[in-house]
């Protein structure tokens, strides 16, 4: 493959919560349901045995003081998902209308084998739990235990041709399900893009769950992208189409305000948003601010992708 990484599944040792702790959190939430004993997402992931919920063995014991997972309630009530409104609680309030079954992702463009993946197909991929930091361009951050699989699992199956250089993503665009589409805050549908090497990177995740449960609608159900070293808006939600393309595709926020949101949008404390500093962030649930890390702390894994690039220019 293109890259080799010592710890492909990401999660730096200092940010992983022991599975037991995550599970005990869920057991509290689920009222101690048998799901805990059954081992995680197997309950909802009917097509796979419990063993399919494979926790990567590379992760180390966590430093809960540094990067404890954000409380589930915060992660599910403080969201940016403008298809359901621009308020932080709008997605939690209004995303109930989103129908996540049936669901398909069409994968086409510069590929040898274009394909359509049903949500069942995606759930049948081997799932991993990955605890990632999420840094919003607005200056707040969370730590979220996602459940999903590397995007490259999909891309490998469709066999990108030599002319595929970028990957374009598109969110569902159905006004009947998404009241926020009436607003002209952005041009719909929401679109995002990655360079092919970014998309193939093992850290780049397609998430179908979080906190060991199925992905809540407001967090981008049934399947979303998670690119942990980029600002949150790159991690497009409720994906319906993935197209491999030759040229850099348009992205929603870049189209809306190009001077503020670049195509790359890598987390970078050195490059301020024109309207606010990106040097610090507030971890949701914490009182004081903490320093923002280059590439959101994933520089070891991804900085080489941008070797030789002026990151002030390609922000």
């Amino acid at each position, binding site marked *: 493959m293109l890259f080799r990484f010592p710890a492909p599944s990401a999660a730096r040792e200092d940010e992983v919560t022991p599975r037991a702790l995550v599970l005990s959190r869920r057991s509290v939430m689920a009222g101690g349901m048998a799901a805990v004993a059954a081992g995680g997402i197997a309950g909802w992931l009917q097509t796979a045995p419990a063993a399919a919920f494979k926790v990567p063995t590379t992760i180390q014991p966590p430093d809960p003081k540094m990067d404890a997972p*954000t*409380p589930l*309630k*915060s*992660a599910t*009530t*403080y969201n940016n998902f*403008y298809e359901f409104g*621009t308020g*932080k*609680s709008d997605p939690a309030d209004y995303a109930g209308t989103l129908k996540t079954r049936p669901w398909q992702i069409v994968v086409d463009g510069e590929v040898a084998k274009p394909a359509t993946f049903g949500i069942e197909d995606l759930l049948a991929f081997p799932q991993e739990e990955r605890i990632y930091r999420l840094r919003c*361009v*607005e200056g*707040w951050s969370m730590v979220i235990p996602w459940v999903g699989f590397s995007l490259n699992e999909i891309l490998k199956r469709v066999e990108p041709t030599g002319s595929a250089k970028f990957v374009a993503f598109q969110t569902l665009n159905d006004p009947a399900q998404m009241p926020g589409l009436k*607003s*002209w*805050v*952005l041009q719909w549908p929401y679109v995002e893009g990655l360079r092919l090497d970014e998309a193939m990177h093992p850290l780049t995740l397609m998430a179908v769950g979080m906190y060991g449960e199925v992905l809540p609608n407001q967090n981008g159900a049934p399947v979303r992208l998670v690119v942990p070293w980029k600002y949150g808006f790159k991690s497009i939600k409720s994906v319906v189409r993935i197209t491999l393309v030759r040229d850099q595709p348009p992205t929603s*926020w870049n189209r*809306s*305000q190009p001077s503020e949101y670049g195509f790359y949008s890598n987390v970078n404390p050195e490059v301020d948003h024109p*309207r*606010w*500093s990106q040097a610090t962030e*507030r971890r*949701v*649930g914490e*009182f*004081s*601010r903490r320093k923002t890390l280059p590439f959101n702390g994933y520089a070891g894994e991804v900085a080489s992708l941008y070797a030789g690039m002026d990151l002030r220019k390609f922000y």
Partner: protein
Amino acid sequence: MAVSARDGWRQAANGALLSPWAKPLVFAAALVPLAWTVWLGWSGGLGAEPVLESVRQSGLWALRFLLVALAVTPLRMLTGVAALARFRRMLGLFAFFYAALHLSTWIGLDQFFDWPAIWKEIVKRPYITVGMGAFLILTALAATSTDAMVKRLGGRRWRALHKGVFVAGLAGCLHYVMLVKGWQTPPLVYAALCVGLLAFRRWPVRIRPAAARASADTPARRFPDGSSPARRS
């Protein structure tokens, strides 16, 4: 001269607004947003980002009180309820009060009194510069809001200074429009209301005659032209 139903309504409104209870009631009502936000903060109801939410809420209420204060004169002209003018100063002072809360929560809770960083933000970020400008204007107006200051400055100069509230209103709305991602609806609604309230002052005469004539017959005429500061109470 026969008292029409409309005049009767106006007299009742004036009477109610002139009652000794009116001001304490409005004062208490104006503190409800603060009490509510404090209660939510205490009970965990401010959501995942309580600090940001309290900064946001205090800012929103500053803007709301500013718009309500700016609405007093147009409303008085439209309805002929002259006693409305009694509340203008208090409403304006509450706008200042919430703006001061807004600024101090930002300085204390969001920036942790990191003065160099705060100064850098104020100079570097246009939306903060604009917001600070609005706050400085409101501070000057609040400081000169007492009867004694009106006397000291003289009516004409006082009125000229207090026209600054129009600038503060526009700057406050601009601050809000500039700080959100994209062109979101709520800040634009505030801005439109503010512009509307200011524009009304340019063309009041054409809308006003009936109401103005009517108000001339009411006892509230004791309080002329709301543009001079209240000297009673």
